[in-house]
């Protein structure tokens, strides 16, 4: 299957350099530690009743760890587009793929999914390290229970991140712009502080970001709430996912058609 081939290729190219993998994990950790300590300093301890009241999770490290790990994975398909696809565009390997019977759509989706899985591996390490370092109480059962939501969230992340696949094919150098976008998402989706502290219009905007709902839902399930407590979040994800996929698909089709007029290289 072509999808497995793309995945194998991406995994090989990434995990071939252990130093790069280790440095990714370290970057992930350093970033996380900063935020957790900063948050605790502001709150004056690890427990916050405001956090508890507005999100259902009162333990700050637990709150931040889950949001952070999901954020990292959520921007992964976007990174795959603006760096991975861009790199192949520049080098000409993309054309080698386009010329094959596999088709560009399958290649692009496979690539984004591969990056998301690679980042998941890295984030699994960061997560477990975080659990140990911050003494987060971990229930394997709760983690298992959160998996279906994580799966749904992945679909939503993929759909929204692939918008950038179409964009990068035409506008090429959008990496820096995407980076700004990544941090915007980090701040307005309630990863490090509850949304209730933000202005109302930002809160409405944050509803459009799949990460907001996935982080909320996973946090609740993680601390033992039942599925019935996350129906709102699930409904949002079920609404956003097809919308993002549709938007990404339309944009991709336009980009593909345009690229076939302009040429895939076009530098």
């Amino acid at each position, binding site marked *: *299957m*072509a999808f*497995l*081939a*793309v995945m*194998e*290729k991406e995994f*090989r*190219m990434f995990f*071939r350099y252990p130093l790069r993998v280790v440095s990714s994990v370290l970057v992930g950790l350093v970033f996380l530690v900063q935020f957790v300590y900063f948050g605790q300093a502001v709150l004056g301890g690890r427990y916050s009743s405001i956090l508890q009241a507005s999100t259902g999770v009162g333990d700050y490290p637990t709150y931040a760890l889950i949001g952070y790990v999901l954020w990292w994975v959520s921007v992964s398909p976007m990174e795959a587009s603006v760096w991975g696809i861009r790199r192949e565009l520049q*080098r*000409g*390997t993309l*054309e*080698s*793929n*386009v*010329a*094959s*019977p*596999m*088709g560009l759509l399958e*290649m692009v989706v496979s690539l984004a999914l591969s990056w998301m899985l690679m980042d998941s591996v890295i984030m699994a390490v960061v997560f477990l390290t975080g659990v140990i370092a911050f003494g987060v109480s971990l229930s394997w059962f709760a983690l298992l229970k959160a998996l279906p939501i994580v799966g749904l969230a992945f679909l939503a992340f993929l759909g929204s991140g692939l918008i950038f696949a179409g964009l990068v094919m*035409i*506008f090429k150098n959008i990496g820096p712009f995407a980076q700004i976008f990544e941090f915007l998402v980090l701040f307005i989706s309630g990863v490090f502080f509850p949304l209730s502290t933000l202005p109302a219009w930002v809160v409405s905007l944050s509803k459009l970001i799949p990460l907001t709902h996935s982080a909320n839902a996973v946090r609740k399930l993680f601390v033992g709430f039942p599925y019935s407590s996350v129906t709102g979040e699930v409904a949002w994800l079920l609404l956003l996912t097809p919308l993002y996929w549709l938007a990404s698909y339309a944009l991709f089709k336009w980009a593909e*058609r*345009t690229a*076939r*007029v*302009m*040429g*895939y290289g076009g530098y």
Partner: protein
Amino acid sequence: MMPTIKVKDLRKSYPKRIPLPFRRVEWVEALKGISFKVRKGELFGLLGPNGAGKTTTIKILTTLLEPSGGSAKVLGYDVVSQAREVRRRINLVAEGERTLYWRLSAYENLRYFSNIYYVPKDEAEKRIRELLQLVGLWERRNDLVMGFSRGMKQRLAIAKALINDPEVLFLDEPTLGLDVQSALFVREFVERLVKEKRKTVLLTTHHMAEAERLCDRIAIIDHGRIIALNTPENLKRLVSEGETVEIRVRNLRPEKVKEVDGRLAVSEEDPTRGTLLRGNLDEEDLPRVVEGLIRAGAKVLSVERVEPTLEDVFIKLTGRALRD
């Protein structure tokens, strides 16, 4: 019999800017209506200078670009509406050296491409081995492409292009930038593919000797138009009359050449060895031409009669030399 490649009045314009909806953009005409047919088992060459439209033609035929007009069929399939059918049955060696994954080994590259060309697994194993042995890279199969020389990379690119056992092979400047030995390997390899495996090959080059030696037929392309199409022998008949001369001069500004004689063109400029002019003249014209050059201020270093080549055909047809 149905031609393997059939190109009819093919046109291509590139937009100068991204053609966003509601935005007027200017277009550059790269192909201005070209037509040709290639038969099965033929080695067909597109010869032309930089920017002639060779790569554009190859990209349209390999479904990477959409034409602006006209039609192109490969093995009877339309390259636009039946792109997938075409892709299964063809392959290409694209321009440049970055068409493979440098951070994968030779073997991993071929396995990747065998997968995305849907080659059955057991078949693929066998074929990868055969191909790597054929291009002399079997011993290096586990090395990353990154460390390969330009010639090795090109040999691997050729192996990749054969991974789906294509009926038609497209090669865009397959010897460009290669050392003499690697270029020779590529030429002989391509020749054997056509003779022994009955593959149909379309290659582009701006290397005249290469086109002449390899190709059954050649289309000379310039500014998006085919200006001549025939076998190398027949093309050279265009310059069999009179005599072909090479005149080496110094101190002559290139723009003066045409004033002296329109049939002369600058085929080489070398700061140390001077300027090499070339042209197909009538026998009795030579003294007058040399005199003209001297009067124009040139120092004539040597005059030599040479065998006409395709370069002279190009000069005759366009007034310009096709420089390597």
